[in-house]
């Protein structure tokens, strides 16, 4: 195949290449993971004991450091005792792909081990609700405020300097405060997501609003449009596709605040599931849960992207591809 066609500067790829590379971007990391997990001489810093021999503290199924294993083996050899046996293994925190895949499946069909435990899907559903409410509240304030800031310089000057300052304050820093005010359940978690998203949202949407071609507003004014109608019949529809794209990006940011938010007060949702599983060293479940978050995020974003194309047929950048 012609190599130069893969590296044409800023040119679109053919659909086949796009699909191939898109699949590759997921398959490559998977391949690396498989090599590290299944090729015994790559990494594998531990030994899984399957016969303790005469080493008194070794047990079947025990993971020991490679160095320790070698040392004990040579000690046993010099004493003429039975040698321990074992296979190279990875640390417990790096399960192999098939183990994670299995956990991914079994997490949905096995009941929680602890009596107060939650099913994986229950945890996930709880997390999704936190995101939903956090993002909704943030948007209810942020979108109108952003549009007003982008439309009226007075509103912008009154709000933006403070918002610029506030957005540098890390949202998790407000955790303790949020608990004190809103209690230990979902309130503070939602508020962290709101704090993490809202301030960026106002600034981004104000900027998007300012980017609308002023000539469109002038054209509308010469057609006899009054100020109120200008806002609802020109500015709003004019920025809608961009606003939608902004909201998609901001929703991604809201996701990144999820884990921190859920650690506040009583730990809950997918974060609680993850910390709980990690405590019992079920790292396969931990990975499964992490992938689950990624899949949900990517999936919902793709879904919204498709929906956007349907909603805004006049919007060319989104229609291209």
């Amino acid at each position, binding site marked *: 195949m012609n190599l130069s066609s893969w590296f044409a500067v800023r040119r679109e790829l053919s659909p086949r290449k796009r699909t191939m590379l898109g699949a590759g971007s997921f398959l490559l990391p998977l391949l690396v993971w498989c090599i590290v997990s299944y090729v015994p001489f790559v990494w594998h810093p531990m030994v899984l004991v399957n016969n303790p021999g005469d080493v008194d503290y070794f047990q079947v199924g025990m993971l020991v450091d490679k160095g320790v294993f070698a040392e004990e083996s040579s000690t046993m050899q010099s004493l003429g005792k039975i040698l321990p046996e074992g296979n190279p293994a990875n640390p417990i925190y790096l399960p192999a792909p098939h183990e994670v895949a299995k956990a991914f499946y079994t997490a949905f069909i096995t009941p929680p081990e602890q009596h107060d435990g939650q099913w994986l899907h229950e945890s996930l559903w709880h997390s999704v609700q936190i995101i939903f409410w956090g993002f909704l509240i943030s948007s209810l304030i942020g979108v109108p405020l952003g549009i007003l800031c982008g439309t009226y310089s007075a509103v912008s000057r009154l709000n933006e300097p403070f918002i610029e300052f506030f957005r540098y304050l890390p949202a998790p820093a407000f955790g303790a405060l949020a608990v004190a005010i809103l209690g230990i359940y979902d309130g503070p978690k939602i508020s962290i997501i709101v704090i993490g998203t809202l301030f960026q949202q106002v600034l981004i949407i104000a900027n998007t609003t300012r980017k609308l*071609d002023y*000539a*469109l507003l*002038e*054209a*509308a*004014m*010469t*057609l*006899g*449009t*009054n100020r109120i*109608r200008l806002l609802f*019949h*020109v500015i709003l*529809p*004019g920025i*809608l596709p961009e606003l939608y794209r902004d909201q998609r990006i901001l929703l991604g940011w809201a996701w990144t605040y999820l884990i921190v938010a859920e650690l506040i007060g009583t730990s809950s949702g997918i974060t609680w599931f993850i910390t709980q599983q990690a405590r019992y060293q079920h790292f396969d479940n931990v990975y499964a849960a992490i992938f689950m978050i990624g899949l949900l995020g990517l999936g919902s974003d793709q879904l919204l992207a498709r929906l956007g194309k349907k909603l*805004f*047929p*006049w*919007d*060319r950048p989104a229609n291209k591809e």
Partner: protein
Amino acid sequence: MKHPQLPSYLDQSETVRDRFARLKQRDVVLEVKDLGKVYKSTKGDVTALKGINFKTHRREFVCVLGPSGCGKSTLIRILAGLESHTSGDVLLDGKPVTGPGRDRGMVFQGYTLFPWLTVKKNVMFGLEMNGTSAFEAGREAELWLELVGLERFANAYPHELSGGMKQRVAIARALVNQPRILLMDEPFGALDAQSRARMQAHLLEIWRNIDITILFITHDLDEAIFLADRILVLKAHPGEVQELIEVPVPRPRHANQSTSPEFLATKARLEALIHPPEPEPDPDAEVKPHMIRFVNVADNVE
């Protein structure tokens, strides 16, 4: 002079003179009195317009011509109410202009159709903003789309149209409001020569058939002569009226008039006005290429 045999641009045939006499009998639609505009900027004040006076009569076609930066856009934007003026008055039907309004339609050089609306919805926009019902507005829009020949594209989005078609829609969108005057700021400036000529003819056709006064900005001399009854020639720094020329080319206009004596005489006058006799020093003239031969001596192209 290049054309000693040309008549003066001031000579008008009987019919042309009669036409102008009748034209000046009509009501004054737009009156500009001693208009001035000073832009205040950090680098100091810029006088964009100074002492502009003229009148436009009903159903007159006026072109505003001038070199780049002479304040043509500033003038038309003040007339549209999109820009404030610093001195003088703008009167539409005797009433001062205070802001943008539907009595003055505008077509911009850049394409300003609303990208989220279909062609038909774009044309309906002005009516709907002023309280006409959607049904009524739709009917009107169809009528005007037919007038500009775009009824087949009623449901297309602006990005699916060519530049010429976009400007046709923009004209229909402005005219559907039935403004007293149509202001056009280099509307065909971005079009290629062919669609430009077609649009000019089309615009004259529209103007002939409906009750509209047109103020048209251009920096193309031929375009101005082809379209206008009178040409307002501006000069730059500060923007002032140089001359208000009555175009002696008879109507109806057609493309092969561009070699007629009246046309050439007017053009010669405009050229004399717009390109001052002593050209400013051109930095390009300083560049002296030093030719080196890069090909074989036997390899000749001529």
